[in-house]
């Protein structure tokens, strides 16, 4: 039976990780994510899992990569400064195709910034913070209930596509408490990575079938192969032949494209005849929805699109929306319009993209967004 409980965002992530089957969590204390590691430190041993507090965030992500390479589902939780430190090994995990889950409760940056204030400033860092080019999936929950569900989705996608998955929350979502409905744990589909490796004699770790996803048995589980962050061919050993470099980088970066439909999730509310749309993600989507309701009461129709998956970016859905409306408002808690830029790129001029920034460390308010809608409707923006 499902149950209704009062839960904090961070708590939802920790509880759901256990349901998803996390067996190793390594972390380093950092506000506003710390409740996740505190809860997992307490709960994991009784669920057959181990928690460790490492010496820093570099070590934390290193430990979860090791644990996952040895076959166990593993996660860490952090915020901006820690996430910056993790970039080196985030790129490594993507390169060697070891699945891990990172929860990043975004806080005001740059640098130490503000530990207890929200921001949506890590969108680009999530995808591009590590050197070179490598794949990621990033999910943006906008409610505590969704944080719970998407944590399970994060583990599933990570295992299915052998890729690091980042849950991008923010301070507001991390610390808000909401009444949520949790389904029975066994009602969730739990996906585990493939284990159908060919026999050792024929086995090559990075020789993929038509799924494009490698089968990597647990290290120490009977298969003797090498995992390396250096450019590698099918054998997994260093190889800098031009064709090997090309195929290694191309394959890891393209493998998710094949699965766009399975990975990219959006929430969409469309109304007939709307000329304005708002694209919002994460906790920001909540006041946006209220603002759209306020506009509706005053006779202004506004469409709504919420990327639940932010990486890969839902460019098809955004383009589709742009073909219908004239203007797309993108409110977000960062100064440069990190997602507004992606929207502009996706719409290819089909609609005007209007950026609305708020970086005061306060969440966006419905009234502020409503005010923007009025201005756009009057043609002032």
């Amino acid at each position, binding site marked *: 039976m499902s149950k209704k409980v009062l839960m904090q965002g961070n708590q939802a992530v920790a509880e759901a990780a256990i349901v998803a089957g996390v067996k190793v969590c390594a972390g380093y204390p950092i506000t506003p994510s710390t409740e996740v590691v505190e809860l997992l430190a307490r709960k994991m041993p009784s669920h057959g899992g*181990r928690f*460790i507090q490492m010496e820093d965030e570099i*070590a934390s992500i290193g*430990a979860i990569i090791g644990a996952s390479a040895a076959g166990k589902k593993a996660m860490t939780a952090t915020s901006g400064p820690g996430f910056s430190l993790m970039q080196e090994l985030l790129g490594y995990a993507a390169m060697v195709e070891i699945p891990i889950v990172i929860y990043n409760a975004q806080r005001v940056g740059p640098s130490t910034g503000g530990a207890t204030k929200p921001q949506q400033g890590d969108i680009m860092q999530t995808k591009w913070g590590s050197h070179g080019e490598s794949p990621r999936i990033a999910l943006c929950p906008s409610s505590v209930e969704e944080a719970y569900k998407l944590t399970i989705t994060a583990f599933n996608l990570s295992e299915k596509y052998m890729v690091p998955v980042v849950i991008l929350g923010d301070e507001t979502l991390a610390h808000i408490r909401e009444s949520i409905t949790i389904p029975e744990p066994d009602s969730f589909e739990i996906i585990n990575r493939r284990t159908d490796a060919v026999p050792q004699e024929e086995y090559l770790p990075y020789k993929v079938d038509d799924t494009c996803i490698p089968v990597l048995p647990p*290290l120490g589980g*009977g298969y003797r192969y090498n995992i390396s962050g250096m450019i590698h061919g099918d054998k997994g*050993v260093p190889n800098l032949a031009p064709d090997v470099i090309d195929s290694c980088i191309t394959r890891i970066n393209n493998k998710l494209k094949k699965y766009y439909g399975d990975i990219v999730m959006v929430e969409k509310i469309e109304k007939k005849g709307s000329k304005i749309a708002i694209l919002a993600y994460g906790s920001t989507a909540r006041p946006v929805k209220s603002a759209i309701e306020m506009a509706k009461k005053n006779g202004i129709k506004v469409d709504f699109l919420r990327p639940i998956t932010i990486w890969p970016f839902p460019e098809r859905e955004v383009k589709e929306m742009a073909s219908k409306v004239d203007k797309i408002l993108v409110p977000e808690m960062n100064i440069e319009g990190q997602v507004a830029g992606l929207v502009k790129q996706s719409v290819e001029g089909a609609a005007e993209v209007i950026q609305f920034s708020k970086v005061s460390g306060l969440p966006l308010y419905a009234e502020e967004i409503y005010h923007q809608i009025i201005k756009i409707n009057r043609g002032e923006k």
Partner: protein
Amino acid sequence: MSKLDKYLRLDQFPHFACSGCGHGVALAAMVRAIDKLGLDQNTTVMVCAIGCAGRLPVYLNFPSIRTPHGRALTVATGIKLANPELKVIVFMGDGDAGAIGGNHLIHAARRNIDLTAIIAINEIYGMTGGQYAPTTQPGHLASTAPFGMIEPPMDICKLVEAAGASFVARGDIYRVVELEKLMLKAISHKGFSVVEALTNCPTQFGRRNKNSKPSEMIKKIKEMTITKKQAEVFSKEELEHKLIRGILVEKERPEYIEEYDRITNFNKEVS
């Protein structure tokens, strides 16, 4: 065909090491120690990172993982947390273990997690072309110390002892039988064990320091180390340029994962 061939990824040869490099001697001593211990090749995991030493385990036919520079011990810690039944050996160079990975080394030792760290000390960053290492002795030349090294060298054995490693030993590639025995003891020790293996780098270190003949370099390494017993009769001045070899620390201390499982009443049933 040698009886040790089964431990090699023969298809990866020829190897990349320069002629006269001592790293292979240390690696071979480790392989012989593993063979003598009769460890299961499938459940002995090699972890390494970057640098000349860091690349060597790729030539070995064990499950292996090569991490970014300095991070080998963090990944090894995770492997052990996921599956404590595995034997995990981490092969590193002095820059890898002592500089970029220094913090991880301290904390792995402090936890006394059951890993073996084998650290090849050659005083130089060979792979990148001869820059100084945290172990470079005063006055020695490196491409980034063209006027001579002025930083005091790091004594990794003393560092890990202070941090809490329960087995610490130092050997050298001249006394290869002794080195193998030290490695054997380290690998069979429960807890965090460290073996420093003094080796030579003729190409990057020797060439700059007017001693690039491998046999001469090895002779110098031979003279650099003394036993604990010899040290007792040496004066303070005489000891200054000597390193003590042999087992430096061997004690029983609670191992991290055993302690964790005990205190948390770890439930293996549901794992």
